[in-house]
């Protein structure tokens, strides 16, 4: 079993929940991202999603769209992000890493080739929001062959049958979308996500993590009462976009993430 499974097992033993953090790779620079991975790891992030910027991120709200644009403008691409991660792994990072991106970036080099290279660089899983179960055949074969987990989504609009099938197909964790919408911070979560988490957990032993709209420690605590983990993206990405030196950036993000991590215990 891989790093993601091991991490959730360890958390379970400690009676903690997972803090999953997202940053856009290459925003503001690949060097900053490498430093941020170590910062997030040290601050207690249990899993890290690295966004591989795509020109047309249709599941993302304004914050991550802007970060994707900045990353692309700064020259981030599949090759240099994988190389940066390989280097971070060689330097000793053990935190589970997932790529979050859109399917076209996998298709361009070939889905199997992309997965093979991602695993080789040190990634543990993939999150591809524009590939629903029905279209996941080629991707599943490729992630399985490469030894990568493939996260599946359940949403408030998913029918009971889809929730069941997605939870059973997911490896790594099940991504429970808290609301109907795109990524981005919200002041409150709609209460419906609770039922969705409970329904999902009835079908699978795979951990269930809740994302979209979460940025506050109180929200983290609320979600961690019922789910196995919480995913925070846009709030961290916003901090990344506030400028300054790499030290200032990692300082800001580290403090924020430590605070969130405390809410998962």
């Amino acid at each position: 079993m891989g790093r993601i499974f091991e991490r959730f097992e360890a958390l379970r033993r400690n009676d903690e929940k997972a803090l999953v953090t997202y940053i856009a790779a290459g925003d503001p620079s690949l060097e900053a991202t490498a430093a941020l991975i170590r910062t997030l790891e040290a601050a207690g992030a249990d899993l890290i999603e690295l966004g591989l910027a795509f020109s047309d991120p249709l599941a993302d709200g304004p914050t991550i769209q802007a970060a994707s644009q900045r990353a692309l403008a700064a020259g981030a691409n599949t090759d240099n992000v994988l190389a940066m991660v390989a280097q971070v792994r060689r330097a000793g990072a053990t935190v589970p890493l997932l790529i979050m991106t859109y399917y076209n970036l996998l298709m361009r080099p070939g889905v199997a080739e992309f997965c093979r290279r991602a695993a080789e660089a040190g990634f543990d899983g993939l999150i591809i929001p524009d590939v629903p179960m029905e279209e996941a055949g080629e991707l599943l074969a490729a992630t399985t062959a490469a030894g990568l987990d493939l996260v599946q989504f359940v949403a408030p609009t998913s029918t009971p049958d889809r929730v069941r099938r997605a939870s059973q197909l997911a490896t790594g964790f099940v991504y429970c979308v808290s609301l109907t919408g795109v990524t981005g911070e919200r002041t409150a979560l709609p209460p419906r996500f609770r039922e969705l988490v409970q329904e999902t957990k009835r079908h699978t032993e795979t951990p269930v993590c809740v994302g979209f709209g979460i940025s506050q420690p109180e929200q983290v605590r609320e979600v961690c009462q019922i789910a196995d983990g919480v995913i925070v993206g846009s709030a961290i990405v916003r901090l990344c976009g506030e400028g300054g030196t790499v030290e200032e950036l990692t300082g800001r993000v580290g403090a924020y993430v430590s605070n969130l991590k405390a809410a998962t215990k």
Partner: protein
Amino acid sequence: MRELSQPDSMGHYGQFGGRYVPETLMSACIELEEAYNRYKNDPDFVAELAYYRKHYIGRATPLYFAERLTQHVGGARIYLKREDLNHTGAHKINNAMGQALLARRMGKQRIIAETGAGQHGVATATVCALFGLDCDVHMGEVDVARQELNVFRMRLLGARVLPTKSGSRTLKDATNEAIRDWVTNVETTHYIIGSVVGPHPYPMIVRDFQRVIGEEAIEQVKEQAGRLPDCIVACVGGGSNAMGIFHPFSVYPEVRLVGVEAGGHGLDTDKHGATMTGGGRVGVFHGARSYLLQDQFGQITEAHSISAGLDYPGVGPEHSHFRDQGIAEYVAVTDEQALEGMKLLARTEGIIAALESSHAIYQAAEIARTMAKDQILIINVSGRGDKDMVQVSRMMGVDL
């Protein structure tokens, strides 16, 4: 006869199409597909659509024998399918009308759409005014600035125009924004997509509502000429007018189908919108697998065309399928050639076609010239050129 092209149950046309959308939208796509299948042959729905087509849109549009153009070119007999004579001036309303009637039956009170030049936005705003539906149109900020007239038309019709500020701030980004809006408001909102693109069932639904073009043309050409045509020519951006006329004819392998893409500054430059003929590669974009313009890493590249309606880096999945199966052939015509096509039809027939349609006119003249005088070619004149006059006058050095 060739078998009629239809998607499989998951919306695939061969390797193309499908449904590549976030999980949140899957149920909406399935709901739409079920509603469409329930109503498409429902006698009340069919009768209502027929009523509005005839009395509101002004169908059937004429199939007109372009005698002077035929003489000028000196080859095949050229007929024009006059989609420019539809209410709002283009074929776009065929689809907007069908989808609005569908949305009403689905109980959706709010309609959203994306638009580039504004033609689909105007068509959507029009049917929403007609049926009293709330209408929000997503339009790239760049397009809002350069298509003031259509922005004003939409607002006059009671629609809200929401400028898209992300990405390149053009049609592809407006489409992303419309999809995001749909994800967020999926329970109350129907998304009227403007071309044969997007996740299944959209390419099928839009095609079916545009098939009226080809169905009428078959009747009309048989009545006027006593036989089927030898060739059909239509422009292809997303490809809805082309699919609308191609699809009914595609069962006749003897009818040559030619789709004309935007060659922009030329296929040897990076300024074109020629997805299938200009080096596009198979990928996933806006919910479907199809050919698309992209760079070495899979980032979508910006298209260019003189005509905003062809300025799109993707193409409908069924066109990709038609191309790979040899059911239709595709070529590209440059900005300059399209302008020539516009002038040619204006001066020989007194018809000012849209810049989009002018691509087809140019190519049709080239093809007709090589055909025998007893052969027949039909051009789909998908829209009228009024919207393009300011731009064209500027290119001809005239300040209006």
